[in-house]
């Protein structure tokens, strides 16, 4: 692939589109312009900062620094997902485990099967992509699980009263919420290239890659993502449901809905 060289002027030019959207928003009083400004500012600051961090890690060529960066991302991702799954008691540990396992297993497989070489250039973006998507899936699935358990508290208890374990009683809810966490990614994977061009493909094509190479790269990343996110969702829900129950297979009293 040819390396790309992009000037700040070119980056700034892409803002024109956002400016048009903001102008339309002002004109139609859609009150979107504030959010747009914040989004632009944050994406600029965050990505620039990340760019420098990644540059430093690439320069150092240290796998330890890669591990440290990914661990930091797992930590931030865990707390973010927990914030969205407030109704799940003790959600921190299942989420942390889900994100670390997703990132760890993915990178281990990538290295073991020689998909990418063991260099920061590959491990950082792949790890970051996996952690970010695993976080979203775990958060959506657990958030849904919390809603389901509180909505289905009576049937759940009626099932426990027949001598079901908490695992047996919760299984349909766990399956349902896992699906809702994974459906967006699965749908996206099913329709990829037909309904939407995924980011990697766009990026690689713009950066000058041959279409077939770009497609192969996109497939690798898509499948890594699919597998790792499904794994994260599975771990988060199959550990997370336990927080709703005591060791004696009792449904804990739910805290009232917040927000």
């Amino acid at each position, binding site marked *: 692939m040819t390396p790309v060289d992009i000037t700040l002027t070119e980056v700034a030019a892409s803002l024109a589109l956002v400016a048009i959207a903001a102008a339309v928003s002002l004109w139609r009083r859609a009150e979107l312009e504030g959010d747009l400004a914040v989004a632009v500012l944050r994406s600029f600051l965050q990505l620039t900062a990340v760019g420098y961090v990644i540059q430093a890690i690439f320069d150092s060529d240290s796998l330890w620094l890669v591990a440290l960066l990914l661990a930091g991302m797992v930590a931030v991702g865990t707390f973010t997902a927990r914030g969205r799954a407030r109704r799940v008691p003790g959600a921190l540990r299942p989420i942390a485990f889900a994100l670390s396992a997703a990132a760890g297993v993915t990178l281990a497989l990538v290295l073991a099967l020689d998909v990418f070489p063991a260099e920061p250039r590959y491990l950082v973006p792949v790890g970051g992509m996996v952690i970010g998507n695993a976080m979203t899936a775990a958060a959506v699935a657990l958030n849904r699980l919390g809603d389901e358990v509180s909505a289905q508290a*009576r*049937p759940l*208890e*009626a*099932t*426990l*009263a*027949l*001598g*079901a*374990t908490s695992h*047996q009683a919760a299984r349909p809810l766990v399956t349902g919420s896992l699906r809702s966490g994974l459906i967006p990614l699965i749908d996206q994977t099913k329709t990829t290239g037909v309904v939407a061009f995924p980011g990697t493909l766009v990026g690689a094509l713009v950066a000058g890659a041959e279409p077939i190479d770009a497609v192969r790269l996109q497939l690798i990343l898509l499948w890594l993502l699919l597998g790792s996110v499904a794994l994260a969702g599975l771990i988060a829900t199959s550990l997370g449901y336990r927080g709703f129950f*005591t060791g*004696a*297979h*009792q*449904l804990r*009293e739910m805290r009232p809905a917040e927000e």
Partner: protein
Amino acid sequence: MTAGVFALEGVCASRGGRSVLRDLDLEIGEGATALVGPSGAGKSTLLRLLNRLADPDRGTVRFAGRDVCDLDPLELRRRACLVPQLPALLPGTVADNVRYGPELCGNEADVPHSLELAGLGRSYAEREAGRLSVGEQQRVMLARALALEPEVLLLDEPTSALDSRTEAGVEATLMRLVHEHGVSVVVVTHDSGQARRLARRTIDLRPEAAG
């Protein structure tokens, strides 16, 4: 003297952070016992302590002389089966619901028999559980408890949605279980007539009626 089925000693329990039962001492003997008291007195809360769907904040609950915390909760719930106040059936057919409990421990349910005991014809077996009237659901709830062949039935207003003829049928079943099969029944009811018809003893949970 008959052996006690349940005994409560100094039981305090709360729900939603509010204290509901305070320092309750109680003996529930064999046969049928009615549990009465005004709405909100804690009748349902008490039943949930008996099969350990919940634990008291303080005090002990004994089943057949043993602290319920020392028993396997799943086995306790099969031996002392609770039929909750509001019907909550599993998706699927009536038969699926009746089979569910016995299947959990590898047994096969006699679906038509359980249905008939609960005052439902066997024709109900293949009906969709979600498409039943409340009174029909209530009887399916009873049938699936009966399918477990429990030693004790904990019934939370089991006939509140039934007409008087169907109610009489359910009561007759309960009397037969008590007198012919040695099953003990703890029944919550708002109907003093039902308490009299069914129970040897009535426990009043009215706060001022303590003792």
